[in-house]
């Protein structure tokens, strides 16, 4: 067991830090991005190699593993940056890399890595809460391939995606784990209807409906009806990175809160002199160390057998959801009225932490998943 980062890690982290410092000025973090900013940042991430980080070398990637992704996510957390990186590279891209044939990978991954295309994973459906295997969207075989019908909700960065990875049911009842397939769909295909919307953290997502959408034969990823295990693995990978992002965001909250307490005076003394506030800082500092450790742990189990991976990732995500939210709300309180304003960055970090807690399983859902794995 060894927690040390090597030189490559440090270099990667520093590169992402530099990118974030340049693209996300401190006083603007968390603001919705303009279309111009979105494009520019996306291209800069591509140039840095971030968009292909986990992909095979012959597909424009650098074959980096979960630890490297974790370092990137943590930096994005610190700066509220990254945009569609999680949706396109981590979720859609990695699912494509895991399920796709060599030909499919070579067709699509280089374009994702170069930033030419942006992808999204259309998984969740109305009324299913966090039970992702509850899929009613149907993929029916026909002569040309498949026909898709159904509705997807909360597709992260769905409205800027060119390519949709749609999870659809090939067979089975609507809550069967078996029978799930993943289809590659051009977002501009006839029959695809998209409702983009803002999210609480100033980002974007979309509800997407599919009505008689024709999908070509070579757009089925992997074996028909056998995608569940790989979908779950990708969700666990994404959750691990949300944990890392939460750790990064909390680190910024801690730094800004500490700074505020030292600067701001009340009743004739800096706030930092008040023991009750000191102890809150101490509790945040402790939680931060634990969040970082759990993010490491969640990264480290990505290659492990599913039961262990589920237990550790869900433990990390439950913890990140609970602590992230609580620390955000505490940081607002520490900042008083100032913390309630849009101008102050504290609220933006808190909103991102709230959203992280509600995405891909909330604390209660992950806690139950921990319990379902049985005692350690």
């Amino acid at each position, binding site marked *: 067991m060894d927690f040390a980062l090597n030189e490559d890690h440090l270099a990667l982290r520093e590169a992402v830090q530099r990118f974030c410092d340049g693209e996300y000025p401190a006083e603007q973090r968390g603001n919705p991005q303009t279309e111009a900013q979105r494009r520019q940042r996306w291209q800069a991430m591509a140039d840095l190699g971030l968009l292909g980080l986990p992909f095979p070398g012959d597909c424009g990637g650098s074959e980096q593993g979960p630890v490297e992704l974790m370092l990137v996510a943590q930096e994005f957390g610190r700066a509220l940056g990254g945009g569609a990186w999680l949706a396109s590279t981590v979720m859609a891209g990695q699912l494509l890399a895991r399920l796709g044939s060599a030909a499919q990978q070579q067709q699509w991954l280089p374009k994702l890595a170069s930033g030419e295309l942006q992808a999204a994973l259309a998984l969740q459906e109305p009324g299913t*809460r966090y039970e992702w295997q509850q899929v009613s969207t149907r993929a029916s075989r026909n002569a040309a391939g498949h026909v898709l019908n159904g509705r997807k909700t*909360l597709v992260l960065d769905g409205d800027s995606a060119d390519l949709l990875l749609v999870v659809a049911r090939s067979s089975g009842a609507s809550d069967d784990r078996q029978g799930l397939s993943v289809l590659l769909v051009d977002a501009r295909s006839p029959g695809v209807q998209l409702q983009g919307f803002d999210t*609480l953290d100033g980002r974007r997502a979309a509800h997407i409906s599919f009505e008689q959408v024709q999908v070509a034969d070579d757009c089925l990823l992997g074996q028909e009806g056998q995608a569940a295990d790989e979908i779950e693995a990708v969700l666990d990978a994404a959750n691990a990175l949300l944990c890392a992002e939460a750790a990064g965001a909390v680190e910024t909250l801690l730094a800004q809160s500490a700074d505020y307490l030292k600067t701001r005076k009340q009743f004739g003394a800096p706030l930092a002199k008040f023991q009750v506030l000191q102890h809150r800082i101490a509790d945040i500092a402790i939680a931060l160390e634990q969040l970082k450790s759990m993010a490491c742990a969640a990264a480290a189990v990505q290659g492990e057998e599913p039961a262990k991976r589920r237990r550790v990732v869900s433990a990390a995500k439950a913890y990140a959801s609970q602590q992230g939210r609580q620390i955000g709300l505490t940081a607002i309180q520490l900042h008083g*009225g100032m913390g309630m304003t849009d101008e102050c960055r504290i609220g933006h970090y808190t909103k991102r932490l709230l959203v992280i807690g509600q995405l891909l399983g909330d604390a209660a859902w992950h806690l139950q998943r921990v319990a379902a794995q049985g005692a350690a």
Partner: protein
Amino acid sequence: MKLQFTAEEEAFRLEVREFVRQHLPADIKRKVELGLRLEHQDYVTWFRILEARGWLTPSWPKEHGGPGWTHVQKYIFDEETLLGGAPRIIASGIQMLGPVLLAFGTEAQKRQYLPDIRQSNTWWAQGFSEPGAGSDLAAVRTTAVLEPDGKHFLVNGHKVWTSYAHWCSMMFALVRTDPNASKPQEGISFLLIDMKSPGLSVRPIRMLEGGNDLNECYLDNVRVPVENLVGELHKGWSYGKYLLGHERTGIAGIGSCKQQLARARQLARQQGLGDDPLLQAKLAQFEVELMALEFTALRLLSPNQQSRTPGVEASMLKVRGTELRQAIYETLVDIAGPDAVPFSLAAQELEHLDQAAVDESLVALAANCLDSRKVTIYGGTNEVQRNLIARATLDAY
């Protein structure tokens, strides 16, 4: 000791309930129940309905238009109006300035200002907080200098967290009139300032949940007639404290807690969590804490009940009530699950509700939760309240 509501009290409850049912405009009720934003006109409309019935100013003396209710009736009124979907009485003219003018104002001031407050013709801005002062009101730095002719004060300074300043035509403010006073609490005066005075400008503060009800007010050589001084010169601090005492009583917000707990139960069913044992246990816990808070409010506010720490009852109710309310709002987010993520500011206006990406019952939920964080900050942070409670307790035992 008799802890049942009397028959008269129960009858009063039904009377209020029925009144709200009959007279509260449907669109206002809908906005309140969905947590949407209310316009100035919504408040004015409802307040005038209440005033017509003589119910707008429960804490004012009877001779000045108060209804002469007992504390239990006031309590029932608060609860029933909120549970019936009515807006809270948020006007600081009614809840803050009114009691101060009644206690310390001149007859001329009462005649001039009170009727317009009751008719909702004048909204008043509260000019207490200043940048860098927060809960520490004694740190007022806005100055008021009496002009040589003795007829006007010249006011200079900067007020923040002024609620609804853009709806207000007048402001009451704490200003420093004696910069050489020996203690920071001394040398402060209580002034009434016309918002249209030259030199007074208002800048809205955008809040994290998208609201902009709060403002900054800049006062640059604003001239205020000496008649607008309330009470004695340099004694404003005590009037401010008197006012904040009034503010804190209602701040426990038990009616709001009940309203939101009912919303949570309804949302839980809607979101398919009606049988979730963990959520049910949590809601039962809230019910327990709400009951404890409610009986405590009724007991501590009851005039014939002695507490061992007189003076901090309102602080106790504020601390528990606000933290409970926040916890319920957080649970609303839990109940919403992934549906807490979509967010549209526009859709939080009734006329644009259909633009939302989620069910209308969820549109304003995250904003409401974030907005609720202010309740442990304003009116003296809960940290300050706990300091006060601790001091009183350590003294008493």
